[in-house]
């Protein structure tokens, strides 16, 4: 595990250089830098097609100061697994000396939807690799289309808020729990507002003797419709409203962490989901009276998932 003092973390190599082409206020590079601080070992990175990929590797430039590969959209886990397999083959033959860690970064579309099969396969096979979902809750790279990670009530360009429908009609898929069901050594949810929690979890993930999965909420000013200097506040609010609980599952054992642990302990008050909906343009239509039942349903589902997590953490 790497040291958690900012002074020490600053001494780690800069693996993702600034000057990339992500939007102002995008959380993805912030999350990636925190994740990459999780080990002092060399890291080989793969990326699934998406915002993060196109913004960091437009030829002839690259933002990566560490080995990096991209192949396609739905196969980030298999790409990363390929690096790890080659490493195992070459390491045992003495052709590679270093201890190398492996991580794939993917958006929610590449994780929850098109890449689910490849991800499931790689986790089941036990590759020693980390998979990080940069979850901005829609296909932002193609212009804000709904994914199965999109929250109920969010207006997207394929689930519009209209006269007949209140944005997306379904709750998001619980991807983190699907990963827990793979019985891999380490699963966690993180938020970029809490760098200490994220770096700690990344350290645990990289240290795990097998696959690890980290689901990171990644506020998107463009897709969520909020000012680009509010990214970190937005990430914090996701946790404070329990829309995005911080927790980890180590070898099957659940534990709430950071602010989420304090909310569960009653030390901090849980904020109403309305605060979350009020903060972003994608939900603004929900403030109309006619969509009040939708707001209630969202609060109900957030509560249900939160209560379930508390019970699981008490086990």
């Amino acid at each position, binding site marked *: 595990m790497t040291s958690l003092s900012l002074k020490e973390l600053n001494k780690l190599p800069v693996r993702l250089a600034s000057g990339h082409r992500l939007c102002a206020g995008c959380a993805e590079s912030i999350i990636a830098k925190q994740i990459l601080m999780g080990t002092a070992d060399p890291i080989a990175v793969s990326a699934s097609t998406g915002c993060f990929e196109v913004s960091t590797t437009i030829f002839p430039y690259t933002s990566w100061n560490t*080995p990096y590969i991209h192949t396609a959209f739905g196969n980030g886990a298999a790409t990363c697994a390929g690096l790890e397999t080659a490493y195992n083959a070459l390491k045992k033959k003495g052709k590679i000396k270093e201890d190398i860690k492996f991580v794939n970064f993917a958006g929610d579309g590449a994780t929850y939807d098109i890449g689910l099969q490849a991800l499931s396969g790689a986790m089941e096979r036990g590759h020693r690799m980390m998979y990080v979902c940069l979850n901005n809750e829609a296909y932002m790279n193609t212009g804000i289309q709904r994914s199965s990670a999109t929250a109920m009530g969010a207006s997207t360009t394929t689930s519009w808020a209209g006269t007949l429908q209140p944005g997306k009609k379904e709750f998001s898929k619980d991807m983190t729990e699907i990963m827990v069901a793979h019985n891999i050594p380490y699963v966690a949810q993180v938020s970029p507002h809490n760098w200490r929690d994220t770096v700690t979890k990344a350290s645990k993930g990289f240290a795990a003797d097998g696959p690890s999965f980290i689901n990171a909420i990644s506020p998107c000013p463009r897709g969520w419709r909020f000012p680009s200097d509010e990214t970190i506040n937005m990430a914090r609010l996701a946790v404070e409203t329990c829309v995005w609980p911080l927790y980890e599952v180590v070898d099957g054992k659940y534990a709430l962490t950071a602010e989420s642990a304090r909310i569960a302990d009653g030390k901090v008050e849980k904020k109403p989901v309305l605060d979350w909906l009020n903060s972003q343009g994608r939900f603004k239509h929900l403030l109309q009276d006619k969509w009040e039942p939708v707001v209630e349903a969202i609060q109900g589902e957030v509560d249900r998932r939160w209560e379930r997590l508390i019970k699981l953490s008490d086990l």
Partner: protein
Amino acid sequence: MTHDIAINGDNAVALAWRQIDPDVCAAYPITPQTIIVEKFAEYVANGEVSTEFVCVESEHSALTLCTASASAGARTFTATASQGLAYMWEMLPITAAMRVPLIMAVANRAVSGPININNDHGDAMSARDCGWIQLFSENVQQAYDNSIIAPRIAEHPEVQLPCLVNLDGFILTHAIERMTMVETADVKQFVGEHKPLYPLLDVKHPLSHGNMDGPDFYYPHKYQSVLGMEKAMEVTEQVFKEFADLTGREYHLVDEYLCDDAEFVAIILGSSFGTMKETVDQLRAEGIKAGCAMPHLYRPWPEAALAKIMKGKKAVAVFDKHLSIGAYGPMFPEVVTAAVDLDAVPKMYNVIYGLGGADATVAGFKKAMEDINAGKAPKITYLGVKS
């Protein structure tokens, strides 16, 4: 030292792989390729190879994992067929564009639909425009030999392209034939140690593989692959020569049978080349001077070698085991293109045959060839189809 064995095509490919002992192999089962990976898995289980063997959850992941592995610097093999190759299709041009010398055996099988497990060349032809080198095999011996030859072509520093080794499903994959094997030490020496160019896991020299190209770079990168393919033609001839020196078995960009004095020739791929040779013998017994040829190397397309064979012929019959519905068999327009610069262009015919495992017999071939020789055949014949 060499010796003869009785072996089917799939096991022959697996045997070549065992002798080469690649660093990584990832595959997904599909008929009629399965025997290759089953046999190879047995070698893995018994420690006869040092390969990291990964049983992936799909062909898409198989080719993805192999592409990344090859990019990382490992010698990497896989195998598939039919729907498996179709499912890999997204990755085929990516693998080629990443310039990794990956080897893939394809147990040629019809592509659905309707679903059909038998042999034709629909799968290989769907990969035709994806930037892969392609070798075809006439028999089990060639499936084995091509498996040993392929890495030498693909891994050449000026080629650096992936290579398909085609062998006809069931006809070769499951048929036991007599074959002369090469001693393992000779195979290892012939194939040599893998020396990857720009391996990704050289962490002291970090590289980015698979970047996004705008128009300024996409087209030039494609052109670089064209140059790699052109080099592959030259390298293939050289490697065939070295292989002949080692084994006595001579291969050419286009393998020929009685073409020199033939008045008309058939161009055909894969196991049917053997059937056509027998057909040519029977035609010659009747006084018809026929010959036949097989592009052993299908990509890059050996146009000059084909033009040389077609020079001075009255007619050329192109036998295609696949069909671009609404046009021709895929090889026909390419053979025609190879002929257009000849002083006298032969009369060109296309024969579609054997789709989805339909019979490809000497009698059927003979009838088609007799009709062509008599000038009675239409431009395109759907051989033996019941309408």
